[in-house]
């Protein structure tokens, strides 16, 4: 069924159009919305686009980086300043998907997709959202928890602190098809060290719930501790707390619960 396509020059106009129409979806790179249209999703009657250049801007010169919602994974991979995010962007899709898919769209990708959002959750990111009444910044955790109840809002950008050291941010994606494929489980850890101890640990898991979630019990097990065998064992033992994985064609919920601790151990100890 044909849909109405509305293209706007500014993100503000696009956000206003999204908030005034019930069945409107914002089209970013197309890998989610065009797929829904191809499958005959009748819940989409209007597609909203914005050609606003602000949506594809990168601000990566300082210690706090801001990535426009329309920036593609390929663009992230092309920026040397974003090297810490290259393993994340490179783990998503093949080259064509990376040329199309955007950082903003990834925040809405249903499991087993949405790996970039997992990394952003570990990195304590802030999502800038344009609503009918102006722009506001939302912590990514809050954003992900409410992403299905966001009528009439448009994601403008996402920002996070650059990790302090090369070892502070770690990422692993477990997939059956390499180098691309949906996630069995995705793990991202942010482990800033102060005086040899972990201060402000964040562990984020993908494909372990409907949205990326934090492994808060594992974080607590690491907080204020030295990264050694005892603290790693405590974090691994707590890895599944608060998760609710489901069965899909890639893995069963049981399998995901069984292996998430194994991969968390490898993430924390730097094993391949």
């Amino acid at each position, binding site marked *: 069924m044909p849909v109405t*396509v509305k293209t706007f020059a500014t993100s503000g106009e696009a956000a206003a159009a999204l908030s005034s129409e019930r069945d409107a979806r914002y089209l970013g790179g197309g890998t989610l919305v065009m797929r829904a249209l191809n499958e005959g999703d009748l819940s989409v009657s209007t597609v909203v686009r914005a050609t606003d250049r602000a949506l594809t801007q990168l601000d990566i010169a300082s210690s706090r980086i801001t990535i426009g919602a329309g920036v593609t994974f390929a663009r992230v991979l092309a920026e040397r300043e974003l090297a810490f995010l290259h393993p994340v962007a490179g783990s998503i*899709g*093949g080259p064509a998907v990376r040329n199309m898919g955007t950082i903003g769209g990834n925040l809405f990708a249903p499991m087993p997709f949405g790996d970039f959002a997992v990394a952003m959750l570990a990195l304590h990111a802030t999502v800038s959202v344009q609503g009918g009444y102006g722009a506001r910044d939302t912590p990514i955790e809050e954003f992900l928890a409410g992403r299905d109840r966001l009528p009439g809002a448009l994601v403008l950008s996402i920002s996070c602190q650059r990790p302090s050291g090369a070892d502070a941010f770690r990422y692993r994606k477990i997939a059956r098809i390499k180098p691309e494929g949906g996630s069995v489980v995705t793990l991202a850890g942010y482990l800033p060290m102060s005086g040899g101890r972990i201060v402000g640990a964040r562990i984020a898991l993908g494909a372990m719930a409907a949205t990326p979630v934090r492994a808060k019990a594992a974080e607590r097990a690491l907080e204020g501790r030295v990264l050694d065998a005892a603290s790693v064992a405590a974090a691994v033992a707590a890895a599944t707390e608060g998760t609710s994985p489901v069965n899909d064609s890639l893995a069963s919920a049981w399998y995901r619960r069984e292996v998430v601790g194994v991969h968390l151990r490898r993430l924390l100890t730097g094993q391949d």
Partner: protein
Amino acid sequence: MAKTALQFRHNGRDVAVFVEGGVNLLATLRDLVGDMTPKFGCGQGGCGACTVLIDGDAHLACLTLAETVEGRSVETLDGLKDGPNLHPLQRAFMEHFAAQCGYCTPGMLMAAKALLDHNPQPSREEVVNAIAGNICRCTGYEPIINAVLAAASGGRARA
């Protein structure tokens, strides 16, 4: 519903068509432009059979809203050959038996062209990564990888 006028470059030639809202680039190319080389495989971005180049970069035509290519350059397999002369990649695919049923071949060739345009001397790993989004159920990929590597090393000399 009103149709939208759309103009873009198709293999170096200007084309103008009227598209319905929400129509993807693959349907536009096949049904309105008459270029049957990009194939419909999954419609979900999982198989790569519809891979085309937009402004030189590999894109999936089935996930591209037709209207987004307004004023841009779209290259498909149909534009790869030069008159009666096959492109070095096409010749290498023939010589290395890289096509069996042939359904993935247009997408494979365009993904490989995107790679060689940006990186004329790729490593084997780079070739594997370049075609990672393209599924082939016949060949087991080895002949395809070998063909791309052969086209890279000998392509220009034989072109």
